[in-house]
């Protein structure tokens, strides 16, 4: 059932949650750029711009400890991180493209191995999505079957209304519970019209067709043509809401240290570098091919979903202007 919440009440909601000791993560400015980060107060929220990094880091941190070790004499003590210590979190102001990526990640982190770090954070987090009212020409959510008003992945979904305030849709039990705990701040449905949704200017891809082409074209001149440009950084994967590769490293000294899990990217030469010295993806086109293949074929093969939500971040930040939307568009036309 749809509800209404005024801007004032929304701010009150966030501040109340913060006061209750719940971590509220929302887009805010940090050193000149918008990022999803824990708020000190509701006033810090910036809602008119897409954060530079996606919301995935609320569940899949840039870097996290998974274990620590200490050596004393001949004795080695290992301490596991207790996921039970992860804080209750409300993730607010999440864009449809970011929110939609979260169920995509759920699939991979609860597949053959249950990643308790991801799942515990996921369990403790309530997601409040926000409909999108502005897009630039890098945005292409509509091309991959989403939309600026898609509530996929959200527990509550807000739509900004003309004249102020938000329409609030409940999408899950977690969302219901949040409303139930803060009844007074919500009103019945409003009759105001939503502020017009953003309209990304791209054609819709036929993802089945794209996948069919990829099935048959592991080797294709397309890869060399496009990917000679790629310089092999990890920027696209790191800003992507759905990319989820990680690396595990031990950092420390002979005496003490940590085992850490941090983001990794298939664009790196080191990503597939074997201990033997061999590298099956020795050249950049092979690495870039993997990015496309994983997003539009392999993930679909395994989980029946596309690993791209059209947020356009990789398009905006690619140092050499590689445009995934343009590439898929080209495949789509084949």
């Amino acid at each position, binding site marked *: 059932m749809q509800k209404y919440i005024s801007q004032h009440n929304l701010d009150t909601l966030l501040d109340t949650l913060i006061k209750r000791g719940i971590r509220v993560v929302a887009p805010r400015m940090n050193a000149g750029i918008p990022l999803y*980060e824990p708020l000190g107060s509701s006033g810090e929220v910036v809602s008119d711009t897409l954060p530079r990094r996606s919301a995935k880091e609320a569940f899949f*941190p*840039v*870097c*996290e*400890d998974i274990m*620590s070790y200490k050596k004393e004499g001949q004795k080695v003590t290992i301490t596991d*991180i207790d996921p039970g*210590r992860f804080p209750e979190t409300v993730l607010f102001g999440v864009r449809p493209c970011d929110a939609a990526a979260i169920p995509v990640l759920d699939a991979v982190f609860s597949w053959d191995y249950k990643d308790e770090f991801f799942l515990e954070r996921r369990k403790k987090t309530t997601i409040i999505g926000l409909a999108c009212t502005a897009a630039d020409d890098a945005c292409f959510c509509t091309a991959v079957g989403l939309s600026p008003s898609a509530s996929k992945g959200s527990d509550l979904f807000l739509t900004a209304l003309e004249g102020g305030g938000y329409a609030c849709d409940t999408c899950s039990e977690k969302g219901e519970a949040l409303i139930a705990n803060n009844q007074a701040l919500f009103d019945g449905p409003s009759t105001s019209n939503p502020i017009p949704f953003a309209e990304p200017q791209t054609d819709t891809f036929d993802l089945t067709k794209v996948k069919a082409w990829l099935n048959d074209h592991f080797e294709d001149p397309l890869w060399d043509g496009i990917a000679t440009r790629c310089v092999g950084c990890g920027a696209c994967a790191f800003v992507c809401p759905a990319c989820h590769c990680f690396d595990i490293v031990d950092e420390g*000294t002979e005496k003490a240290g940590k085992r850490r899990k941090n983001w990794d990217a298939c664009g790196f030469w080191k990503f597939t570098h074997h201990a033997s010295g061999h590298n099956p993806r020795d050249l950049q086109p092979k690495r870039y091919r993997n990015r496309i293949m994983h997003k539009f074929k392999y993930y679909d093969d395994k989980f029946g979903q596309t690993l791209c939500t059209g947020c356009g971040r990789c398009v905006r930040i690619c140092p050499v202007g590689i445009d995934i939307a343009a590439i898929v568009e080209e495949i789509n036309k084949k």
Partner: protein
Amino acid sequence: MHPEKQKHTFEPKIIAFVCTWCTYAGADLAGTSRMQYPSNVRVLKFPCTGRIDPVFILKAFQQGADGVLVSGCHPGDCHYIAGNFHARRRFAVFRKLLEFVGVDLNRLQFSWVSAAEGGKWVEVVTDLTEKVRSMGPMTEFKELALEEQWSGTIDTPELQEAYNAI
């Protein structure tokens, strides 16, 4: 015989990177001459100051050094002809970089100490130790080492303990 040693609340950790031919030998001479200096310094021996990589200095600070000393042969005395000349340029630039990112250069000392200058070794080490002692602990890198991206942060007792230790 000796005056009562003053008790200090803070004992700085000083790491010295020295060349084997001049400064290490100078420190040996201070030893054979039974000169006395603060025990805070830990000496790492290199064949030549030319071998000393700026990364070592960075690493020393990261590992908790409160002060770092780099010392080698006087210009013209290098056992390897010119290693100290290369080092001189390298460190002239590196210290400017550290200064620019906010490291207080009072914690980073460079010196020429020859194999004959046991006294100068004592003086350099004593001065640096006392200077750093008066500045207090170098907290910047230690704090940084404990910081996490917000998403990876969890309040563990050991983390708290580490913070308190700084």
